[in-house]
């Protein structure tokens, strides 16, 4: 049971390097929060501050109703899974899992019961006498999970726990971690740079960059309504396309214009932008938000020349040249386009993103400029 609250927390290293700047974040009890961002964005530092492995330079870190700024790790009731697994190489699997309990002077029978219980749940019972060096990557990962599980901590911290696994194993372990969260009924804070992991696992995602939170929200929310170009680009694979252009507001209808391309904007956006014709913006189009069907005279559309065709089995990706820009879109595999061919694709107006060109902020978000 733990609610974690950051109040204006800053982490500064020697030499005035700021890893985390003025962080305000509340993680609710039993919530699964994913800290997402590129390397060096401050997500691991944030996690380490929760663990007590890094000191908070400024601000307050609360666990429930207690300030824990100076509380050492072992008194915080947290367990952590590391990217490198950090298993004790000279101890057996059993002793690795039991170590945290031994350090807390839990009775021997209780330790044995919990270790065997966790091992059974993780299907590593037959490995208990082995050394970490005799295990595969996936097995080591399970031992690391087991070591955290037996502690029955109030907060479960994971620092890129799946990064060292191969792709297939990573996907199956994602499901297991999700199950683990349901079964353990405890707060999970999970750090990753993998947007797919974040989208599948999180109750809420915290997107970070340069030590600053960019957006907090449910996965769908963040994906559908990115607050700025950083968030929009970081989530989505292949990434969102941007077309630079200007706003045109003729006759009450508001549209985006780039060269010969004109896209009528949906009413919600139009209402916001009516007063600023000539404003420079970026139009964001996700690769999947185009369609070969439903093309009418009034539908907003995009015309371009097919540059590359990449079949990926389930779909087909097309690289297009649109008004001098490279645009990458996903179409169904019945589409038989050839390179050099002109193509016209319908855009879904509600799924268009418009960002201010200078600030990169979304013009759809609340409080948008």
């Amino acid at each position, binding site marked *: 049971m733990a609610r974690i609250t950051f109040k204006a927390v800053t982490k500064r290293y020697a030499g005035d390097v700021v890893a985390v700047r003025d962080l305000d974040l509340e993680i609710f009890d039993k919530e699964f929060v994913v800290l997402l961002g590129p390397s060096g964005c401050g997500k691991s530092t944030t996690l380490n501050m929760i*663990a007590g492995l890094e000191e908070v330079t400024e601000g307050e870190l609360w666990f429930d109703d207690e300030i824990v700024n100076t509380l050492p790790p072992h008194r915080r009731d947290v*367990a*952590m899974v590391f990217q490198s697994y950090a298993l004790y190489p*000279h101890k057996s699997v059993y002793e690795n899992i039991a170590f*945290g309990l031994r*350090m807390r002077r839990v009775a021997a029978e209780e330790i044995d019961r919990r270790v065997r219980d966790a091992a059974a749940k993780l299907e590593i019972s037959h490995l208990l006498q082995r050394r970490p060096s005799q295990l595969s990557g996936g097995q080591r990962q399970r031992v690391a999970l087991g*070591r955290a599980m037996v502690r029955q901590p109030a907060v479960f911290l994971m620092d890129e726990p799946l990064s060292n696994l191969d792709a297939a194993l990573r996907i199956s372990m994602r499901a297991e971690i999700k199950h683990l969260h349901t079964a353990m009924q405890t707060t999970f804070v999970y750090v990753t740079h993998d947007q797919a992991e974040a989208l599948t696992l999180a109750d809420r995602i915290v997107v970070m960059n340069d030590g600053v939170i960019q957006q907090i929200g449910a996965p769908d929310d963040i994906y559908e309504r990115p607050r700025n170009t950083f968030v929009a680009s970081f989530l989505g694979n292949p990434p969102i396309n941007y077309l630079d252009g200007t706003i045109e507001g003729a006759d009450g209808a508001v549209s985006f214009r780039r060269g010969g391309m004109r896209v009528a904007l949906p009413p919600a956006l139009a209402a916001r932008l009516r007063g600023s014709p000539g404003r420079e913006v970026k139009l964001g189009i996700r690769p999947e938000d185009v369609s070969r069907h439903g093309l009418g005279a009034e539908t907003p559309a995009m015309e371009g020349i097919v540059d590359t065709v990449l079949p990926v089995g389930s779909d087909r990706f097309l690289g297009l040249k649109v008004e001098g820009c490279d645009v990458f879109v996903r179409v169904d595999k019945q589409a038989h386009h050839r390179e050099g061919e002109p193509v016209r694709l319908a855009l879904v107006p509600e799924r268009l993103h418009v960002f201010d060109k200078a600030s990169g902020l979304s013009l759809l978000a609340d409080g948008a400029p």
Partner: protein
Amino acid sequence: MTAITSLPRRAARFGGPTYDERNALVLIAPLATVLFAVAVFPILYSFYISLYGLKLTRPHRVPFVGLENYVTVLTDPQFWEAVGRTAAFSVMSVAAVAVIALLAALLLNEEFPGRRVLSAVLLVPWAIPYVANALMWKWIYDSNYGALNGLLYQLDFINSYMVWLGDADKTLALIANAFVWKEVPLAVILLLVGLKTIPADLYAAAKVDGANALQRFLHVTLPALKSSFALVIVYETMMAIRHFDLFFILTEGGPGDASHVVAWRIYVETFRNLNFGLGAAMSYILALATLALAYAVIRALAQRI
């Protein structure tokens, strides 16, 4: 290199050495010749000598005596006393080197201002040749103008200058001290390399698991250092057992026979008594004993790593 070795070309003559084999022989030959001259030949020749009664005091009569020299050495009570002193010196030295080096390595593994300077200073003894080190300590221990006397006198620990190396009870310990001073740097480097290989995540994991500083040392640091430690102990034991320079320069085996160790005894027998046969036999015994000991230590430690 792989390009050369992966394509063996047959010599024209059927069954002759391949191009690669010939190349290899040509390249190895110079080193092999030198090694044979300075290592293999002396080893074999000294064994040959050890089977003869070769005394330079009567160089014209060199009878074959078989293993008699070995029997003489092994049944001589003075030899066994020397063995006892060698063992005492080695245990003292190796234990001190191991403990001091471990502490120094742990210190230098931490980040603190002046760490680089301290590391550089610590390496100085390593750079000093054995004989220079021995002469330096001879001055430090000197009974008339030695630095040790000066220091202790000024700090009021002693009332008058002492003849440090003349005290039979202290001689071995004082020589061991000089030996340790010289040997610690290498041991520190070996242990520091071991320490650097321990991932920081292990300490973080142990902290989260609730281990305090001592427990982290016992459960993370020490086990990881096992192989470096084994190396230090084997190497230093071999160095200590065979050590000669300090005994030669500081005490010449004295006072009385207080520092009369096996290496010194070999020197005396060979170059003072000119009894080459006996000296060679003793050298062989010492070499085999060192080898056996090193093998035993490595076996014992390897099983637990």
